[in-house]
Every structure is written in structure tokens, then in C-alpha cells.
């Protein structure tokens, strides 16, 4: 174990921990923007700076090792001043239109500006950022006027999806996130998994499918299992007013054991069939080749009657049930029980092989 002092308190942390980890273990909050525990470290946003007694430079706590005997201050006047300046610098390049921003209420830049009392930037010198917003893909918006260059998206693309669709283009203040040749994502190796959207701390990357449907603080998140392929990824359905308005990731090991928040394009952006106007809402009975609406009682009685008649007339094995690889275990169980115990046949199958 390593013993160090943080904000006057003696703290112990395992060998190999960073100062940030030591702070987290001690319950001392440290603001971070580029830090993401699942991604390669960058150490670049400099929000997590701390002061170490006797050292001339501030240390980025996310990459600085916790060392025996060091004396660390996380909110010294110098650190607070530095964080303010960093937030003001980011604010100066950021298009604050929180009132219409999808990320309002769930934005790290907004949170920290609030926390450090940054109302406006002292550094609005020169031209404001003005990147065109025109990626035509139907899945997510790329608004680099809100980008704070944390490169979490780049690292997620490279380290989770391994697609390497995006990287940092240009240098200095003109550095920006771009595909090769700064084109559209559709012309890149992008697979639209939205891992970049998942990790983006600001409103730079937001789902187009969810646009305008609800802010993070208006939605309830229901943890469930994706209904597409057999991988069994965990996802969160975002619900507002009894309507699914989006999908987000649960990124914990226990909550999302298979995928730890990673999803594919279908899981993340393919959910709005739930709200399709084509959904069936009442039973239908075919009469003279045309469907008409029916009540449940009428439909169920008809089904029970016809099945009973056919069973009597042609025998149980003249009937079959196709159950489904898409419905739940409980429903499959009931379907085969129904087939075997009620219809009296083993003619039950599903499209496992198809």
C-alpha cells in the first residue's frame, strides 16, 4: 500500500494507483473530461490537475502515480484558478446553445462551468469556432462547434470498436476530430456503433434518432437485454411519458457483463420500430379474405373453438406451433407447454436453424 496525503487527509491506496484513483477511493471528487476508465489514458484535458507540494508543475492526477509521502491538494486556489481558465478556454470554442442541446443536463462542460462558477469566458478573442454540421448519416449528429477535443471518441473507436474511423486532424487550435480526408462517416470504416456517442462528454455527438424526444433528466432508464442478435448485450431503454425515446449504455461490469456498454448500430439506433404506427393494436379476424378488427374475447373464443374442433376431427398431430427465437424463455416455455399439454402434440419448433 501507498500512503499519501490528500487535502490534509492521510490516504492509503494500492501500489500502482494513480492519484485520481487514490482520490476516488477516498471519496474526494476530482473533475475529469478526457479520462475514461475503459479507454487508453490521454492525460490531455488537464481538468484533473492537482498540486503536489514541492513540485513546480501541476500534475494531471489521472496519469500521475500515487507516491509514498506526497502531499496533494485537489482544490487549492491555484488549481481552482487553473481549472477556471481551462473551462473558459473550452467555453471560448464552444457553441453554448444549451436550451436546444440534446445533452443539456448531462454535459460535463456544463456541469463543471456551473461548479466553478464560469459564467462567461475571459478569452473570447478571435473568431468563434464555426465548423459546418453536415454529416448525412442517419444515426448521429457531429457538431464540432461543441467539441472539447477530449479524444474520447477517437479512443473508443480505436480501443472498443477497433474501427479507427476517426482521428485527430490538423494541429493546435485547428485540431479537430475527422475521418481520413475529413469526409463523411459513410465514406469511412465507421460501423455506426455509436461508441463515440456513448463516451462523448458534451453535445458534440448526439443521436439523431432520439433528437428532440427527451433530455437525460426527463427519462427513466430501464436496464434490459437487446432483442437483436444472440450476443445478449445489455442496454438501457430511455423512457419518457411511457414512450421509448432512446437507448443508452450501462457501462458497468455487473450491469452489462457481456458488452460493458458497447453496442452495435442495431442495438443503439434501431429501437424506434417500437413506436412504429404499423404496430398491431387489436386482434384481427379474416372474413372473406379481408381482416377486420375484433375484440379479444371474440378472437380468443374463435381460436379456442377452431383448435378444439380440428383436434377432435383430425387429431392432435394435425396441428403445429411455431414458437420463436425472439420471445422470452417464459413465453417459449408456455408455447411448448401449450402445444404438448393442451393441443397434445410434439409438433413445436422455431427457426433456430433458419
Amino acid at each position, binding site marked *: 500500500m501507498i500512503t499519501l496525503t490528500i487535502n490534509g487527509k492521510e490516504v492509503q491506496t494500492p501500489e500502482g494507483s494513480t492519484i485520481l484513483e487514490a482520490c476516488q477511493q477516498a471519496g474526494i471528487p476530482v473533475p475529469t473530461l478526457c479520462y475514461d476508465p475503459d479507454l487508453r489514458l490521454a492525460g490531455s484535458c488537464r481538468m484533473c490537475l492537482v498540486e503536489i507540494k514541492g513540485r513546480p*508543475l501541476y500534475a494531471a492526477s489521472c*496519469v500521475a502515480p500515487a507516491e509514498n509521502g506526497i502531499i496533494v491538494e485537489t482544490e487549492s486556489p491555484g488549481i481552482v484558478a487553473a481549472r477556471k*481558465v481551462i473551462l473558459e*478556454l473550452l467555453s471560448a470554442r464552444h457553441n453554448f446553445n444549451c436550451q436546444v442541446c440534446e445533452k443539456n443536463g448531462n454535459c460535463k462542460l456544463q456541469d463543471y462551468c456551473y461548479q466553478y462558477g464560469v459564467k462567461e469566458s475571459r478569452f473570447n*478573442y478571435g473568431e468563434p469556432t464555426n465548423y459546418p454540421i453536415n454529416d448525412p448519416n442517419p444515426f448521429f449528429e457531429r457538431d464540432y462547434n461543441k467539441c472539447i*477535443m477530449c479524444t474520447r471518441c477517437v479512443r473508443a473507436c480505436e480501443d472498443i470498436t477497433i474501427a479507427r474511423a476517426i482521428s485527430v486532424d490538423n494541429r493546435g487550435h485547428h*485540431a479537430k476530430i475527422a475521418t481520413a480526408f475529413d469526409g463523411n462517416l459513410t465514406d469511412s470504416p465507421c460501423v455506426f456503433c455509436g461508441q463515440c456517442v456513448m463516451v462523448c462528454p458534451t453535445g458534440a455527438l448526439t443521436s439523431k434518432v432520439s433528437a428532440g424526444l427527451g433530455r437525460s433528466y426527463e427519462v427513466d432508464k430501464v436496464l434490459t437485454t437487446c432483442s437483436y442478435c444472440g450476443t445478449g448485450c445489455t442496454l438501457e431503454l430511455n423512457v419518457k411519458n411511457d414512450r421509448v425515446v432512446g437507448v443508452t449504455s450501462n457501462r458497468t461490469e455487473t450491469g452489462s457483463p457481456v458488452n460493458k456498454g458497447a453496442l452495435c448500430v442495431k442495438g443503439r439506433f434501431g429501437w424506434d420500430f417500437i413506436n412504429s404506427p404499423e404496430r398491431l393494436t387489436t386482434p384481427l379476424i379474416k372474413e372473406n379474405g379481408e381482416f377486420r378488427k375484433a375484440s379479444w374475447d371474440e378472437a380468443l373464443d374463435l381460436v379456442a373453438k377452431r383448435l378444439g374442433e380440428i383436434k377432435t376431427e383430425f387429431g392432435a398431430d394435425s396441428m403445429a406451433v411455431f414458437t420463436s427465437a425472439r420471445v422470452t424463455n417464459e413465453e417459449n416455455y408456455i408455447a411448448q407447454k401449450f402445444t404438448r399439454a393442451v393441443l397434445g402434440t410434439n409438433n413445436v419448433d422455431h427457426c433456430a436453424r433458419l
Partner: protein
Amino acid sequence: MIEEKRIVLRNADLIDPEKIEDYLQAGGYQGLEKARSMSRPDLIAEIKKSNLRGRGGAAFNCGLKWSFVPADAPVSYVVCNFDEGEPGTYKDRIIVQKDPQSLLEGMAICGHAVNSKKGYIYCRGEYPYVVDLLNRAIDQARNKGVLGDFDIEVRMGGGAYVCGEETALIESIEGHRGEPRFKPPFPGVAGLWAQPTVVNNVETFANLPSIVINGAEWFAAIGAPNYPGTKVLTLTGDVANRVSIEVPTTATLREVIYDFGGGIKDGKRFKAVQVGGTSGGFIPESLLDTPIDFDSMRGIGATLGTGAVFVMDETRDIVDITTRIAKFFEHESCGKCNPCREGTFRAHEIMKKVNQGRASVQDIENLTILSQVMEKACLCGLGQAAPAPILTTLKHFYPEYQARLQLN
């Protein structure tokens, strides 16, 4: 009057740099031979004791740096930083052009100390002709067998100033975008391809053969005790003689400018000197008696840096020069960390405003706060040093700023 003392340039103009025979005749590769007769810990201890400090700018004790390489590392690398991207600096080029073998010998000595079989020279992109010279020198050394099982390869630089920063340089050799890495881990533990790596400047390496031959005490007795030896300086700007010289580190700025540089050109008066390259502090007349050694320069808020000495006469416009410097840093920021990426851009914008006579006292205050934060908060030396010209000119030449400010 202080005199030149030649250690790294000991063979300059005395031998033919294209001929390894000349170098051998002048005692070349005897240092390497002696080093190889020593145990590795002894060799490292000897270099540590000489108190040779890095000549690339950060002045880190050379032997101490080597000692970070784990003794049992199966693979390690020796990298020579010959990026020399600092405007106004050309001392590494002079050293290589006049005596390439002494660089190679120095690298091989280091190779022995850290048990490395492979060295890289990262050469500034603007020096293609020097690359050819180096490759010929390496071929000759290989053919003579003097390097033994140590091999050296030359790599062309990426052309960005920040690629001279040792971890950005490593990224660049690996074929990535030249962006600094956070430290630790330091290159000595995990550098090139994640293997232990020593990065030293050309001048640092070129000092080694003489130190090994003459011993640590000999070297430690030359120049300033805290920063012994000599320093190669390149004089530019408004001096009468724009020369390169090698002097003991006890030499003062005044001696450098007036005794070697011949004073100010055209009989004009001195205004300021900036030492150490673009990120060096500006030094006024009143501080000219400071010795050039690293710690003394630090003491006056300046730096020795690479040893570039840029002299400005009374006609120079300090605010305009500082604005140009701010532009340089805006252009050279790699863009990785927030305070530098955004800070160099805004600092340049504020300096432009000052320079155009549109700025207020508030703008100067904002510039100062920004600069102070950048010095402590940036990820690498570029962003940390970029504010130095601004802060030192504000300190020593404030009236020139004041004259530009908008009243009220």
C-alpha cells in the same frame, strides 16, 4: 577576458569530417574502448559524477537519466535528439558537420552503459544533406568495426517543432502523429516501442568521449560547478559577429555578446537578449552580468535552453516580436492538451490586439493569468515554456506595452 574552450568542437576544422581515419588519428574511439573496459554501473557512476547535464534544454543529469534504464532490460534503445527545431539554433548541426564521429562514439558509449544494441538519430527534416553525411560516417564506422555490435540508424524528422520533445519524437519514430506522451512513464522505463530508451541531445553525446577519457573530475572542474563543462552558443540578431562559439559555462551574457559577438551591430545600443530559443525569456541590460549556466539563467526567469542567443538592438519593437513569437507557438502547438491548444491561440489573439493598439489593461490582465496557468498546467515543455517571452517582456519591458494600450 574569457576564452573559448573546446570539448565538443575539439576536432572542428582540424580534421576532415568525412574521414574516420582522421578522427581515429586524433584519438577517436579511445573513449569508447575505455568505456567498454568498464562495468556498466561504473560507467554510469562516472558520468553521473561528472555532472554532465543535458544540452537539449532541460539540463537533466545525464548519468542519472541512464541509471533509470532497468539493468535487466532485454531490449533498450539509444536515441539522439537532433531535431534542432528551435529557430536561431544550429549548434547541433555544426557539431555533426564538423565532427560526426564524436556523436557516434558518444552514442555507442551510452549504448554500452544501458546495454543497448540499437541507436537512432532523429534528424531535423530541414537537414537532408547532414543525413547523407551521417550515413556516410555510420558506414565508415561500421566498416572499421569500431561500433562493435551497436548499430545506428538515421531517421528524418517530421518537421514539427514539438517533435523535438522527447516523447513526441518517440511517437514520430514509431510512425505516429508527433504528440507528446504524458510522463511518467519516462522514456528510460518505457520509451520507443515501450522499451527502455535514453534520449539525449547531440551536444550531450558529443561530450562523452572526452569525459570518459579524461575522467569525471576533469570535467566537473570546468565551468560552473552546478552545470560544468562548456556550452556551444549560436549568436543571432543584432550582434556584430553572428558566430557559434563554445565557452565554459561561467561565461556571462555580457562576455558572450561583447567579447565574442563584438557588441551591437552598427554602433547601436543594446535593448534585450533572448537566450535559449523562441521560448526563452527576454533579458534586459541590467541582468547581462549573469553567467550562462542553467541555474543562473533560471534564477533570472530565463533559460539556457539550446544556447541560442538572440540579440536585439534599441530599434527593435518588443511587442511586435513577442506577437510573432506568440504566433509561432500557436502554429506549433500540437493540439493535444487544452491549455496549450486553446491558450496559445488566445494568447496570440490578445498579443495581436495589443500590437494593433486595440487592447486594454483588462486584456493584459487576462493574458497574464492565462500565461501563468499555461506554465504550470500544460502537458509538455512547449506549452509550459510558450508564455515565458510574454511574461518576461511584460516584466522587463512593460512601458512598451503600455504605450500601445487604449486609454481609459
